[in-house]
């Protein structure tokens, strides 16, 4: 319905067909997010050879493996650190980080805030399904209060994180959020992020139907997708004193734009200057 490019987007051109069908559970929102990402890549005309996908550990980490491009599957929480090195060494590559809520905010929380602070030209796609799905459904930093997980059998007692506010405060160039249900809108957001010169942090609200949805009785896959439609699970986003980090309503779209110098340029100028001095001295 919303195609702009004259030639149609065929997702098979971007997938490793020998690995399909992918390992994600039935109804998992990560597949929809992957489609939106590839769609955005297609519409921006990014060459697969110049595309580097770095992913961490977890369900989201496996998403990158199905993309027929240069993909790196690195240690838990470190995709942003790896991508920083990659982007500094090869500034010609388009570097995309696919990470999850646990990977990005818990194990790699440290790397996230420093990647935001540096503002290097990386697009970070955080697939937020509010749980550690692959390891059996443990509580994650974005699990909403009172939700049941395998490690919180009496309901989660910790407040949940608003990752977008964190990224904005840490200085990320572009911060956005979208739900998987709005696939064309998600594609547009990812396009903005890819086109942005600087660090763009995009939170994708995904669904874990098999583990999180089942344990919390959130309905089947279709119901969970439909629940994203408006205020999206409002009980998870109450803006009370107990939930200081949560917006009372799930705001989507571009949430913050913080135009600062891109770090790669600064770094290369400094490196060139230092190299020049070294040459003169020799």
């Amino acid at each position, binding site marked *: 319905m919303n195609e702009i490019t004259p030639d149609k987007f065929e997702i098979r051109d971007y997938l490793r067909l020998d690995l399909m069908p992918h390992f994600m559970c*039935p109804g*998992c929102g990560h*597949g929809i997010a992957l489609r939106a990402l590839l769609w955005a890549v297609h519409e921006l005309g990014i060459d697969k050879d110049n595309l580097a996908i770095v992913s961490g550990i977890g369900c989201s980490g496996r998403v990158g493996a199905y993309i027929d491009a240069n993909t790196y599957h690195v240690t838990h929480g470190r995709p942003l650190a790896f991508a920083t090195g990659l982007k500094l060494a090869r500034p010609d590559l388009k570097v995309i980080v696919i990470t999850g809520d646990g990977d990005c905010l818990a194990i790699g929380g440290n790397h996230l805030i420093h990647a935001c602070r540096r503002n290097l030209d990386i697009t970070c796609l955080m697939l937020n399904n509010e749980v550690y799905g692959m390891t059996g459904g443990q509580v994650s930093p974005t699990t909403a209060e009172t939700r049941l997980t395998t490690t919180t059998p009496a309901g989660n007692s910790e407040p949940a994180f608003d990752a977008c506010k964190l990224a904005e405060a840490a200085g990320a160039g572009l911060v956005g959020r979208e739900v998987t249900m709005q696939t064309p809108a998600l594609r547009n957001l990812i396009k903005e992020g890819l086109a942005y010169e600087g660090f763009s942090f995009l939170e994708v609200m995904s669904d874990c139907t098999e583990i999180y949805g089942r344990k919390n009785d959130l309905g*089947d896959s279709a*119901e969970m997708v439909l629940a994203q439609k408006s205020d999206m699970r409002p009980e998870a986003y109450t803006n009370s004193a107990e939930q200081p980090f949560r917006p009372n309503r799930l705001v989507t779209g571009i949430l913050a734009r913080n135009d600062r110098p891109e770090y790669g340029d600064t770094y290369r100028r400094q490196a060139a200057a230092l190299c020049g001095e070294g040459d003169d001295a020799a």
Partner: protein
Amino acid sequence: MSIETIAAEADAVTADALTRNVLIVGVGGQGVIMISKVLALLCQTQGLQVKQSEVHGMAKRGGVVFSHVRFGAKAGDPVWSPTIPMGEADVLIAMEWAEGVRWLPFLRADTGVFIADTQQVIPPFACRNRDFFAEPAYATETPSEIVGQVSDGFALDAGRMAEELGNARAANTILLGTLSASLDFPLDDWLSVLNQFVPKGTEEINRRAFLLGRDWVETPRENPAMPAPTPALPIARPGIDVRLEITRSWCKSCDICVKLCPERCLDLDDQQIVRLKDPDACTGCRICEWLCPDFAIAVHHETPERPHSA
């Protein structure tokens, strides 16, 4: 009041000599409620019992609006229920053509008067084919067909008549004038009640619109039922050239496409794999393709989707 009296009165009502029923239908913004209020107040000034009941929920989005007006045939006659039973409306006024056709079962088969504006307000959900410039699925009945089916029928292009008069928004007043010819109330009372309801500064144009509608009925013409309306649209459900490519080995039976398809044209087969159940209903909207997490569905438009953008 004893049970016997109530029963006797109820019997009298079922003999349907006591109540006059006027059903007014249209879509949002056409003035359905205004007409019914004029009529209801007029009945009150004549000393009749009157009940009015309306639905105008989604009116501002072009949704359906209808209003039931019931009043006693003479002073003292009771009106029991505020809604008109099916097949008992004495007059059906339709501001919008398809709404008129839809409410026809409410009209009294033998003596009912059908008054309809032939203007068409095509709702978004009639646009089943999402291609540009595609024919919408809209009522295909022509005014001559309908007017031939009812005992007394008037189909007039009130929208255009009001526009020629100087204000397209007076179309409802024209239909009110047409209605006045079917009811037995003095003309002066009609006009004085109408004056209380129309916005300040439009009294004169509404008076002229009212008289125009009233005269339209009384003007002899060769075929009163055929005022040369805009031609009805011929296509009800156009065939759309869409092909769904389903990769069976990739489908994981998650059901998202089946439940989120707006046309409900998909289902799961005996092996729990998605299939296209109703190919004719598919409009090629691509929602299943977008929301399939397993990329099992691809929608192909055999004809170019947007001819003008090529």
